[in-house]
């Protein structure tokens, strides 16, 4: 499967980012525009309609399988002057990084896309869809050449967050360009609005069904001698269903029959299965039938994988001949190396395999897994290993995939695979339990993170480290240090273990040193902590460990502040801040203290506006600064509360302190931070606050909801994505409106944007 990497594309335009070398696998097959096959009936009128689509932004082509949606798109692409960016959607697009990555690459091949967008996608902390989308949105609106972006097979996209991305794209298409969607059912992406504005073109079954003249042409094109009357009869019998007509043509060609059983599409796929089995498969040799059914377990096939599955040779030639004879196979590249089965037939063939040889299926999957693994395609190997019922093997493969996927921000994929493996299997594998804990924590789910971390405590740690550290033991130690589950002393011990295990100049050593520093700091030894932070920042900068370096500088800044050394504090804060900016760490957990240090520096110099800006940036981090990362979360909030006090915003400080208290109920032993929280609360307890609650009193849950307000989603749909009841959403929304001083959703969005609580 030909693949380039997104990093390679980005590398041509931006300087290399030092931390690791994330590379995003571009699956070329997904971007390949299928060629127009021989004997296809041309649909001139429809194509004309699509070509003259000046007023429209979105085209939907909606019809059941076998109506020729992809073919129509391919024909239109050939005859339209505009360049086409083509993305064939599949299950891997459930990961926003995969979906958006391929969309961006496809668009980039037409007209250069801002490198910033690539950087955002390849970000090691996992692309936050919000950020990527807003950058993609602005990239789209700055296109100079009109284009058409095709998303084929949209129904294979189940993930709501990714569907939201499609809606956003639909809303950002510039004039003269189009988003074309092909699906079996009308996608729910806010189409009514587009329809009302006259910006939607809809192509459906009525448009795609073939009439008598077209049926005649199709039959002639397939080499069948039929009269126009016979063709008309057939068109009537099939109600113009192209695949039905095509199957009929195949049948007629081989059998010279003049009448056929009626083959309408009646909406029931089982009917199609029966028909294909009796009218198509039955006419093939037994050997060919076995080839088709057995290789149908593969989503994408080439000669050598088929050889492995069938335990024979020569499959490449077999595939070529199948493709020549009929339309069951769709080529996925120009070299005719990779194919896939036409959707309709793949389902039929699989059903047939399950009917004929159910006991053979696990073995077939095992062979496929072997073959994929030997060529290094671990994701496919994993899917087949799991399908073969070999959970242990699948678990081992996932552990190996972990590092590359984590680095490329594909934690959504990892989470999906972990779910697929199932809790029992993950709970038996130390490396995977640790991975699950870490991903859960990064996604703001401290309950699950704690549960998985506890599971990992009792398990042996063998296998590769998904973090890329020297060993899994070292990774475990770092996760434990970051999650501070055992209190300040345990945090220190864990961090020191990682320090000892890591090679002298690795970025992970820098991280371990930074966390040692934090542990030392909360134990009350400021001098020693400062020394550790100094070392961490130095090694971090040299080795490309930017998260560690920026965190260390921020901590040094805060220490300098506590000593009254303003100039040093300002300098460290500045360095931390520019590192965050250059390395795109804006939404990383370690950036909390950086914003806090910058805010305090701004306050010191009297720049209240800047202080508020830094506060707002930090607010966006609050949803992931949970008790999953207690030390950083508490420290950041305490520092931000101090800034609030400096800005006379007592209510804001109180909001932050309330959250600190909540974190402390889960993790009470945080050394000096615990006492500092009490002191701060006492200090402001006596201060009168005259103003009514404003934006700084937005709770973390309200901030989470805020990010959904700009979308088209209803409160109920938002509740479904946030796993809360619609009642809660409504209450929180009202609270948000009040705190922002507005009474309408769009005003709330605008106010939040003005306050930089949302991306513009």
């Amino acid at each position, binding site marked *: 499967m030909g693949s380039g990497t997104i990093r390679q594309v980005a590398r041509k335009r931006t300087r290399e980012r030092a931390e690791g070398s994330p590379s995003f696998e571009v699956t070329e097959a997904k971007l390949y525009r299928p060629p127009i096959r021989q004997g296809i009936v041309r649909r001139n009128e429809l194509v004309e309609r699509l070509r003259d689509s000046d007023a429209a932004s979105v085209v939907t082509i909606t019809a059941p399988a076998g109506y020729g949606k992809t073919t129509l798109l391919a024909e239109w692409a050939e005859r339209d002057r505009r360049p086409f960016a083509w993305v064939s959607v599949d299950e891997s697009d459930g990961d926003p990084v995969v979906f958006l990555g391929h969309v961006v690459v496809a668009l980039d091949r037409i007209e250069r896309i801002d490198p910033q967008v690539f950087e955002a996608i390849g970000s090691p902390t996992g692309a936050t869809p919000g950020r990527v989308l807003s950058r993609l949105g602005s990239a789209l609106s700055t296109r100079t050449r009109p284009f058409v972006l095709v998303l084929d097979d949209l129904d294979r996209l189940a993930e709501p967050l990714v569907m939201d991305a499609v809606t956003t794209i639909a809303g950002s298409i510039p004039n003269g360009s189009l988003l074309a969607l092909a699906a079996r059912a009308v996608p729910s992406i806010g189409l009514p609005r587009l329809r009302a504005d006259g910006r939607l073109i809809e192509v459906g079954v009525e448009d795609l069904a073939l009439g008598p003249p077209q049926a005649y042409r199709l039959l002639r094109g397939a080499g069948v001698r039929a009269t126009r009357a016979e063709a008309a009869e057939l068109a009537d019998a099939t109600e113009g269903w192209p695949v039905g007509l095509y199957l009929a043509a195949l049948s007629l060609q081989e059998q010279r029959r003049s009448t056929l059983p009626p083959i309408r599409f009646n909406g029931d796929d089982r009917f199609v299965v029966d028909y294909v089995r009796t009218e198509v498969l039955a006419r093939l040799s037994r050997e060919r039938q076995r080839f088709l059914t057995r290789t149908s377990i593969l989503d994408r096939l080439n000669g050598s994988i088929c050889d492995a599955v069938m335990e024979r040779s020569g499959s490449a030639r077999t595939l070529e001949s199948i493709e020549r004879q009929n339309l069951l196979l769709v080529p996925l590249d120009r070299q005719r190396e990779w194919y896939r089965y036409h959707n309709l037939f793949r389902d039929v063939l699989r059903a047939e395999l399950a009917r004929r040889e159910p006991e053979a299926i696990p073995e077939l999957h095992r062979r496929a897994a072997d073959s994929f693994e030997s060529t290094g395609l671990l994701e496919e190997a994993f899917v087949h290993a799991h399908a073969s019922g070999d959970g242990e093997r699948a678990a081992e493969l996932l552990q190996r995939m972990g590092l590359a996927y984590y680095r490329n921000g594909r934690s959504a994929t990892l989470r999906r695979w972990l779910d697929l493996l199932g809790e029992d299997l993950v709970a038996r594998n130390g490396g995977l339990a640790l991975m699950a804990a870490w991903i859960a924590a990064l996604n703001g789910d401290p*309950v699950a993170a704690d549960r998985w971390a506890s599971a990992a405590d009792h398990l042996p740690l063998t296998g590769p480290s998904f973090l890329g550290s020297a060993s899994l033991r070292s990774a475990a130690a770092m996760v434990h240090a970051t999650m501070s589950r055992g209190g300040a002393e345990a945090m220190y011990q864990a961090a020191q273990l990682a320090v000892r295990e890591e090679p002298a100049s690795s970025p992970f050593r820098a991280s371990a040193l930074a966390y040692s520093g934090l542990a030392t700091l909360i134990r009350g030894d400021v001098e020693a902590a400062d020394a550790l932070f100094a070392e961490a920042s130095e090694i971090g900068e040299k080795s490309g460990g930017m998260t560690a370096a920026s965190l260390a500088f921020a901590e040094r800044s805060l220490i300098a502040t506590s000593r009254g050394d303003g100039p040093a504090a300002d300098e460290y804060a500045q360095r931390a801040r520019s590192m965050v900016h250059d390395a795109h760490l804006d939404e990383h957990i370690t950036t909390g203290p950086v914003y806090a240090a910058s805010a305090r520096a701004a306050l010191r110099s009297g720049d209240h506006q800047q202080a508020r800006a830094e506060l707002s940036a930090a607010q966006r981090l609050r949803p992931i600064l949970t008790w999953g990362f207690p030390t950083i979360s508490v420290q950041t909030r305490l520092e931000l509360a101090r800034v609030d006090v400096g800005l006379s915003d007592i209510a804001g400080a109180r909001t932050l302190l309330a959250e600190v208290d909540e974190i402390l109920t889960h993790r009470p032993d945080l050394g000096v931070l615990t006492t500092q929280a009490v002191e701060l609360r006492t200090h402001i307890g006596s201060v009168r606050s005259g103003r*009514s*609650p404003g934006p700084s009193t937005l709770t973390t849950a309200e901030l989470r909801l805020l990010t959904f307000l700009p979308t088209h989603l209803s409160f109920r749909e938002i509740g479904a994505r946030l796993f809360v009841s619609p009642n*809660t959403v409504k*209450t929180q929304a*009202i609270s948000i409106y009040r705190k922002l001083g507005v009474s309408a959703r769009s005003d709330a969005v605008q106010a939040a944007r003005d306050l930089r609580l949302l991306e513009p």
Partner: protein
Amino acid sequence: MRALSGCNERPTSEGTAAMAKHEDALRCMALGDERYVKDVLAMQLTNVDASGLDPKTHALVRLGALIALDASQSSFQWNASTALASGATVDEIVGVLIAVAQTVGLARVASAAPAVALALGYDIDAALEAHDEGERIISAERR
């Protein structure tokens, strides 16, 4: 769908503007929008200084009144935010419910408890549906 306008905009023409105005007025009353209350209803939102009470006590006393009046969710919401912002703790807010129970009666307290809970971020309805302690914790965490 007509765009919603603010609570204090002046009508520019008759007819539809008059209709728009009443919708906005109702919405603003439901939300307790500050500007509307001050400008149109001509009411003083808070009389903290005049009362001589500190802000926290003021908010907690008003909460007692709201409970007695069987107020709407929106009123409890705003009151809770104000109380928290003035330094009240969650326990103190719940303490008010306890304090007034004998005076306002059990029925009022039972009716007010879910509303106060929701204002503090705890969805009792969702918790009743939860299968186990873990889920109940999650519904409380989502504050």
